């Protein structure tokens, strides 16, 4: 490569753009003296080493310096403060004494009931039974829903045929399946799982489909150009590209499994169905013991919050950060 340094010159004042154009005949025979010359016309660096140096200088100018991550205490303290305020407000309301104490128990009463339930082991049993069912049911739903979702998203006729049905199933409350499940499966675990599946599977499928719909079309073009087969396209490009949408589908799917599970446990009690949080809720109603009911509600809520905080939030954060989508969000 010739290393001759080219002068970045402006030979004359008249820019080329203001010349009048004389019809068809304008050709290369135009006079060469009056030209405004831009640096970009010829080589602007002198050889490979020079280019490497220039580029690395520009790269470091244009890249942000990495910032060290620090623990943001407001992320922990603010939710705790909000919780304390709510409990105090609850205690304050109860101490005003508008309602009978057995109808609206205070935080301390519920705490006492927690202790009793813990001591006789029914709290641990209920949480464990429900959590285990919820997680197993959810995982099986994921395994069933993911290939179906991918297939529907990738194959247009299938999508057109089954898309409305899947969306409809998501609207149908999964509690509606409880009577059918009891008739088919009796009071067994199968009933509970069936209801969980009917709640979780459609929402996971829908999440995956909408994730796929939001993929920039260019990713597929790149895949085609790179020579991806249909399967490679689905697994190497479409699935990872749809991951943010898929993840929110999974989150929703978990929420649906958990809710459906509670509904099933409240309605279907007895038989070989074990003692879950929903059963505890039902028991509280049978005994007209508001502290048990409150305990069960708080436990159901707590499990939901913990799963979100410990499982989904870290995954989502990591996913978004790696893709550079976290900047400016309020997370």
């Amino acid at each position: 490569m010739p290393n001759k340094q080219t002068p970045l010159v402006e030979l004359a004042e008249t820019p080329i753009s203001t010349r009048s154009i004389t019809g068809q005949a304008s050709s290369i025979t135009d006079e060469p003296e009056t030209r405004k010359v831009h640096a970009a016309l010829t080589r602007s660096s002198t050889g490979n080493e020079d280019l490497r140096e220039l580029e690395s200088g520009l790269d470091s100018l244009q890249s942000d310096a990495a910032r060290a991550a620090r623990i943001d205490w407001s992320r922990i303290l603010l939710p705790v403060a909000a919780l304390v305020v709510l409990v105090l407000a609850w205690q304050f309301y109860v101490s005003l004494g508008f309602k009978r104490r057995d109808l609206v128990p205070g935080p301390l009463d519920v705490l006492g009931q927690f202790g009793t339930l813990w001591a006789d082991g029914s709290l641990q049993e209920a949480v464990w039974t429900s959590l285990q069912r919820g997680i197993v049911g959810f995982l099986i739903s994921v395994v069933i829903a993911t290939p179906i979702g991918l297939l529907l998203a990738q194959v247009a006729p299938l999508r057109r045929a089954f898309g409305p049905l899947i969306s409809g199933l998501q609207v149908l409350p999964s509690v509606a399946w409880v009577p059918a499940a009891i008739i088919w499966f009796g009071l067994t675990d199968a009933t509970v799982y069936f209801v969980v599946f009917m709640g979780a599977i459609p929402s996971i499928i829908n999440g995956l489909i909408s994730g796929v719909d939001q993929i920039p079309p260019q990713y597929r073009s790149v895949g085609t150009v790179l020579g991806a087969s249909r399967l490679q396209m689905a697994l190497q490009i479409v699935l990872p590209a749809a991951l943010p949408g898929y993840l929110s589908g999974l989150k929703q799917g978990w929420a649906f499994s958990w809710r459906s599970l509670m509904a099933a446990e409240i309605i279907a009690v007895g038989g070989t169905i074990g003692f879950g949080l929903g059963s505890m809720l039902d028991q509280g109603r049978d005994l007209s013991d508001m502290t048990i009911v409150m305990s069960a509600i708080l436990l159901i809520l707590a499990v939901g919050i913990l799963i979100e905080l410990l499982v989904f939030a870290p995954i989502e954060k990591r996913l978004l950060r790696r893709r550079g989508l976290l900047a400016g969000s309020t997370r």
Partner: protein
Amino acid sequence: MPVVLENLGKRFGDGAPVLDDVNASIAQGEFVALLGASGCGKSTLLNIMAGLELPTSGALEVPSDGAAFMFQDAALFPWLTARENIELALKLRGVGKSERRTKANELLDLVHLGGAGDKRPHELSGGMRQRVSLARSLAQDRQLLLMDEPFAALDAITRDLLHDELERIWKETGRTIVFVTHNVREAVRLGQRVLLLSSRPGRVVQEWNVTEEHRTDAGLAGQLTGVITARLREEIRRHAK
């Protein structure tokens, strides 16, 4: 001749033809700049050459193994690092796992990004992303490289450097390059041959040869730029009401 276009035409639906009777042939190892105003169908022509779209009339001859393609925005996958993006191209080409890593590092080095392999696309500047994208299209190892205004969105300093970079890589790898642009200076800076495409319908109306003298003599290059600009404006003026 790796690329031959014969009476190529393209229309979308019942609309007016986007491309009409396009004729061109591009030699092995040649660097051709495809120049035209907006809406002249140059991207469509490139997509047809890449096999992303089909022509509605005429015939074209492209290498049987297809072409590498570089998009206007880098189009890197955000869930992969720079190196993994390149490795994916190698993987889809069927390169073995152990060889992929070495090859990807070589390519990163070729575009002067040896140290940035573990960065994710959003951590790279626009110019760096385009270089990764260039490395990825080289990873495809196709004789023909199609580029669709790859530097249009970059700042002027970066663009000038990437012109040098692309010229160097073209000389090192001996690829046949078709480079689409609406920038006359860019076309003259890079192409050995500049093809001017008319607008609505797109058709090759004139072509110019750019010699090695134009690369080093700014005055000569400026003169050619003026001539081509004049012809391009004439083409645009035809569409004035």
